[in-house]
C-alpha cells in the first residue's frame, strides 16, 4: 500500500511564517495587532481628555484620565482598591464555578434524556426569564444583605447560559458519530464521554463565556444592591458620594479584568480544544 506524500494538511491557525518557520507574533499574545490596540487606546484617552477639559465641572461629570489615575493610586496606597478587587474576584470565581458545576451536568442530562428534558425544559425557561436581578429580592428575604446572597445571585445567573448551551450542544452532535461508536460496542457512559461531551464542546465554550459574563454583571449588581464591599459597591458608593473618578475607575477595572479573564483563561481553553480539532475557524 503506497503511502501518499504531500496529501493536504490544513494550515496552522494564528501563526505567521517567516522564512517558512513559525513565528509567534504580538498578535498572538494580545489577539489583535499591538499597534492597532495601542492606537485605539491612545485615541480613546485623547478624546476623553478633550471632552473632560471642555465641559463644566469635570470633576463631577467626567474627570480627566489624569484625575482617575491619581484616584486609583490613592486607593491602591490605602489598600482599598486591592481589597475591593479581591473580594469581587473571589465572589465571581466561586459563583461561576458553582454555576458551571451545576449547569453542565444538568444540561447534559437534559440533552441525553428526552423524558427529563420534556419535564424540566419549560421550568428552566420560566426561571431564566426571571433574570438575575429580579430574583434578588426573594434571596434578600431569605438571606439578608449578605455575601451568601450575592453568591446565590451569581450562581443563579450563570447557571442558565451554560445549561442551555450544553443542552443544545449535545443535541447537535451528528448522529453519525454516535452510530460509529455504538457499532464499536460503546457503553452509555462511553458514548457520553467519547462523543457527546467533546462534540458539545464548542457550545459549552460559548456557554461558559456567556455564563461568566453574566456572573460578572451579577456580582457587580449584587454588591451594589446588597451593600457588600467590592468593585460594584465601589462604583455605587462613588456615585452616591459624588466621587465620579471612583466610578470611572471601577468601570475600567471591570472591563479590563474581563478582557484579561477572557483572553488568558477562556481563549486558551478554546484554542486547545475546539480550535485544535478544527471545529471552529479563527
Amino acid at each position, binding site marked *: *500500500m503506497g503511502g501518499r506524500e504531500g496529501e493536504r494538511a490544513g494550515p496552522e491557525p494564528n501563526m505567521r511564517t517567516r522564512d517558512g518557520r513559525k513565528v509567534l507574533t504580538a498578535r498572538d499574545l494580545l489577539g489583535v495587532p499591538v499597534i492597532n490596540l495601542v492606537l485605539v487606546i491612545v485615541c480613546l484617552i485623547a478624546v476623553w481628555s478633550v471632552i473632560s477639559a471642555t465641559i463644566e465641572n469635570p470633576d463631577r461629570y467626567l474627570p480627566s484620565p489624569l484625575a482617575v489615575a491619581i484616584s486609583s493610586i490613592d486607593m491602591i496606597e490605602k489598600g482599598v482598591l486591592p481589597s475591593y478587587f479581591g473580594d469581587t474576584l473571589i465572589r465571581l470565581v466561586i459563583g461561576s464555578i458553582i454555576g458551571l458545576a451545576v449547569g453542565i451536568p444538568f444540561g447534559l442530562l437534559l440533552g441525553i434524556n428526552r423524558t427529563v428534558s420534556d419535564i424540566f425544559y419549560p421550568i428552566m425557561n420560566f426561571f431564566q426569564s426571571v433574570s438575575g436581578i429580579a430574583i434578588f429580592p426573594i434571596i434578600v428575604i431569605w438571606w439578608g444583605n449578605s455575601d451568601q446572597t450575592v453568591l446565590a445571585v451569581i450562581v443563579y445567573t450563570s447557571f442558565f447560559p451554560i445549561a442551555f448551551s450544553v443542552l443544545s450542544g449535545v443535541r447537535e452532535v*451528528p448522529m453519525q458519530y454516535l452510530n460509529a461508536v455504538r457499532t464499536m460496542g460503546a457503553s452509555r457512559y462511553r458514548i457520553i464521554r467519547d462523543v457527546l461531551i467533546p462534540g458539545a464542546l464548542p457550545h459549552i465554550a460559548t456557554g461558559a463565556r456567556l455564563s461568566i459574563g453574566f456572573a460578572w454583571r451579577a456580582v457587580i449588581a449584587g454588591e451594589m444592591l446588597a451593600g457588600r464591599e467590592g468593585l460594584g459597591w465601589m462604583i455605587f458608593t462613588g456615585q452616591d458620594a459624588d466621587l465620579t473618578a471612583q466610578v470611572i475607575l471601577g468601570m475600567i477595572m471591570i472591563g479590563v479584568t474581563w478582557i484579561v479573564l477572557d483572553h488568558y483563561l477562556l481563549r486558551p481553553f478554546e484554542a486547545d480544544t475546539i480550535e485544535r480539532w478544527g*471545529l471552529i475557524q479563527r
Partner: protein
Amino acid sequence: MVAKLTVEGLTHRYPDEYTGESVHALDNINLEIQDGEFIAVVGPSGCGKSTLLNILAGLLPHREGVVKVDGTPVSGPGPDRGVVFQEHAILPWRTVARNIGHGLELQGMPKAQRRKRVTDFIEMVGLSGFEDKYPHELSGGMKQRCAVARTLCADPVVMLMDEPFAAVDAQTRITLQEELNRIAMATKKTILFITHAVDEAAFLADRCIVFSRRPGRIKAVVNIDIPREERVWATLVSDARFTTARDRILGLVREEVGEDEE
C-alpha cells in the same frame, strides 16, 4: 459450517415521516454470506441497500425476518459488526492514532498492547506519519482510510461498508478500491459492500447482489470468478471475465432504473 452472515425472510416497512404512509423498504430478503467472502450490493437509488446495512449493523431494529451473525441473532449494534460509513464518521477530536485505536480502547485493551496493533493498521492503510494529525487536517481519501483502519483494527466478525468511497474524488476512489482489495486479500475479512457504482462492485466483489427497485428484493446474484491477486485496474479493464460480469450487472440495474424513466 455456519455461515458468517445469515438473513432469512427479512422484510421491512416504516411509516414515512411526512405522509404517514407505510414505506415498504425491503421484501423477503434471503442471503447467506460465507466466511471471507466479499459481497457487493448494488441497485437503483432508494432500493433499500442502506436500510439492509443499517439492519445488519443493528442500528435499525427489524421486526420481520431473521438476521444472524455467526449463528447469533442480531439485536443491536456491536463490535462483531464493524461499519464504515459514507461520511467516514471518524471523531474530529481524536488524532488518527486514537481514532484507529478507539475500538480496542472500548474493548478494554491496555495502551501498550494497543499501540503495536494500531501502528500496524496505520501502516496498512498508508497513513504512516499522520498518527498525530487531527481529521480536519486530512484529505477525504485519508479520512476514509482512517475509517477503514478503525473498523478493521477492532477485528469485527463482519465488515459492513455503506458506499464508503462515494464522497471521494474519482482518482482517489480508484486507489482506495485497489487498497481495499489488497486489505481483503491480507485479512480475509468477510465484507459486505454497498455501492452505486457498478464497476466498483464488479472490481471488488466475489459475488454481486443486484437489488430491484423499491420494495427491495434480490433480483439476481452475479458471480465474479477472478482471483484477488489479479484484481488490478490496469489489467482488469480489458479482462473479459470482468467486463462480462460488469456489463451483466449494469444491464440488470438499468432494467430496474429504466422502469422509473418510462
